[in-house]
């Protein structure tokens, strides 16, 4: 068995090298002919960049990053459709359409139909329905992008922890009421961030990892120990106050990263935080959205 696998790997490697060599040979000829053609074929550009030493292959996802994302080639919907039907497409777990297969919320979670292009773009249909991304817009912080990339906090929380216990509700209502530095915040909200197991039993407090901006830096330069720190947001130390990532949008808990990170489970359900957040297929899906989420 081991020998068979080794042989197959060798054959695959040979095939890849052969394909690459053919492409390079053909490409070289083209490159000579159309040296300055800015509108040339992808292959010509690829060979030109290879010759000029512009190609830098980094890490496990070099092929996707270099060949697809860096060149922004159009992502066909057929590939997205395949991803939705493929187990482990974005990390270990079932295919998306197993749980999101129709607009019927009795048989498909949130009435979300990921089996069709229209269904993907419509998003959640169960009341209150909403799309999970905006075609043509940056997708990393869209609902779909967050669900595929963001780990729920505290890190390692199981998806079977209900997101509507009293602690979550207190945070949600505080943000909805304007996120003020009032008695309610001081008595009922702030202590939650400082207390072990406040949201989920047997988990560290939020301020274990997000407690100040000092040396060594708090994770994501985030200080959840004070109202000022919470409102300042993440990454303020280097990016500056104006450019910090705000984690609370007063009046809008669903748009607040603080609340999102507490209640939103990463998909597929049960995926480990150790799984790659920037899985190549995730990045391709997000690029498809940013390209307009075309169904053709």
């Amino acid at each position, binding site marked *: 068995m081991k020998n068979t696998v080794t042989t197959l790997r060798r054959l695959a490697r040979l095939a890849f090298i052969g394909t690459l060599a053919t492409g390079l040979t053909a490409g070289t000829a083209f490159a000579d002919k159309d040296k300055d053609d800015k509108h040339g074929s992808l292959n010509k550009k690829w060979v030109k960049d290879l010759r000029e030493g512009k190609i*830098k292959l980094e890490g496990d996802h070099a092929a996707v990053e270099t060949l697809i994302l860096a060149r922004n080639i159009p992502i066909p919907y057929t590939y997205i459709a395949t991803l939705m039907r493929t187990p482990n497409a974005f990390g270990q777990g079932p295919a998306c359409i197993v749980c999101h297969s129709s607009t019927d919320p009795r048989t498909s979670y949130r009435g979300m139909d990921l089996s069709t292009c229209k269904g993907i773009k419509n998003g959640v249909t169960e009341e209150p329905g909403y799309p999970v991304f905006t075609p043509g817009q940056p997708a990393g912080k869209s609902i779909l992008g967050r669900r595929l990339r963001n780990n729920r906090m505290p890190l390692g929380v199981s998806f079977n922890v209900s997101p509507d216990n009293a602690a979550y509700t207190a945070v949600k209502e505080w943000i909805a009421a304007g996120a003020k530095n009032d008695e309610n915040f001081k008595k009922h909200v702030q202590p939650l961030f400082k207390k072990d197991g406040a949201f989920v039993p047997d988990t560290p407090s939020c301020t274990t*990892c997000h407690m100040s901006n000092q040396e*060594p830096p*708090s994770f994501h330069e985030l200080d959840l120990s004070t109202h000022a720190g919470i409102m300042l947001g993440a990454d303020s130390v280097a990016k500056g106050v104006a450019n910090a990532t705000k984690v609370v949008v007063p009046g809008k808990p669903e748009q607040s990263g603080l609340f999102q990170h507490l209640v939103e489970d990463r998909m597929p359900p049960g995926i480990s*935080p150790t799984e*790659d957040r920037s899985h190549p297929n995730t990045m391709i899906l997000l690029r498809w959205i940013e390209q307009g989420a075309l169904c053709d």
Partner: protein
Amino acid sequence: MISLRRRQLLGLGLGLATLGAVRYAHARSESGTASLTIKRRWPTGNQRLFPVSRLDQAVLYAGESTLGLIDPAATQVLWSVPHELPEGAVFRPRVQAGIVVCGGRREIAAWQPGQNAPLWRYPARLQIGTPLLHEGTVYFGDGHELVALDLESGAPRWRFAAVADTHISYAPAATGDTVFVGPGDGRLYALATTDGKPRWVVNRIRDWQYLRQLHLSGKVLVAGGYQEKLHGIDVADGRELWSFNAGNFINSHHVANGVAYLWSPMGWLYAIDARTGAMRWRHRTNDYSGGSYNWGPLMAELVTQDQRLYALDLKNVLHILDVTQGEESARLNLPEPVRPFVLPLDQRRALFGADNGDLLLASL
């Protein structure tokens, strides 16, 4: 028939014994955390301590109220002075040529150990960043400007303005006559130490957003980017030599003897060759299954000494690994909560900062 039963019984007995041994060994490895013993403690007059520094055989500390010095062999604090920094100190005190620099976001100042009056004070124009002491000069960010002061007198040598409305928050790094700084504007600047004029500037904000915690390893600048990658950069021209994808944010990496050590919340502790970017080894720290196997998150800067790598996690457990292979040789539980730093004194002793502001000497 009887013989067969005997064999079966014998086999069953051996099997159970083996199973028991395996389970025992497994249980030991799962819960094999020994406890550290606190041998001495020094009240410091602070409630919150920041990482400490060596000054010969003594150790410098700083907190929200005082700056001081202890000798691990002595019970009394050697020197303690109210630093009177607005909002307290937030950086590790740094020392060079017998001068200690201690600072916070609003002010930075210098002392000679043993003297109560500071040599100089510098109040922030905007916000002070982590300082670097290099060849008689202290470098630090003040808002978007890099400031160079004479270490002894505090006299200004030069200022260099990066892009406004961003901050130089992390410490610069320097080698020879060049100082490197990576502000929040996404650029990496190499400046002449003599006058602050740029030798070269690279703008790779799309790749790294900004660089954090610059370290030098020979002619390679090792920097963690905001975008989850560790970068190896040629000090001569800012060219990227390699990058390593850590899969999540990089907080407190450490560079020593040609190796960069870092922890990723993806659940790995990595040792990366600082010259090539190749991974030398990785050690699994977390699978987030909730078992005792899982380490707490690592915020404390990793420390190497005597072929050992020291990693203090946020569950107050000190992990000691072999630097060559990454094998964990000891897992030591602190008897009380500590701040995120560790200073090994030798192979048998280490200093920690208790959550109540005391300094602790622990026997490993």
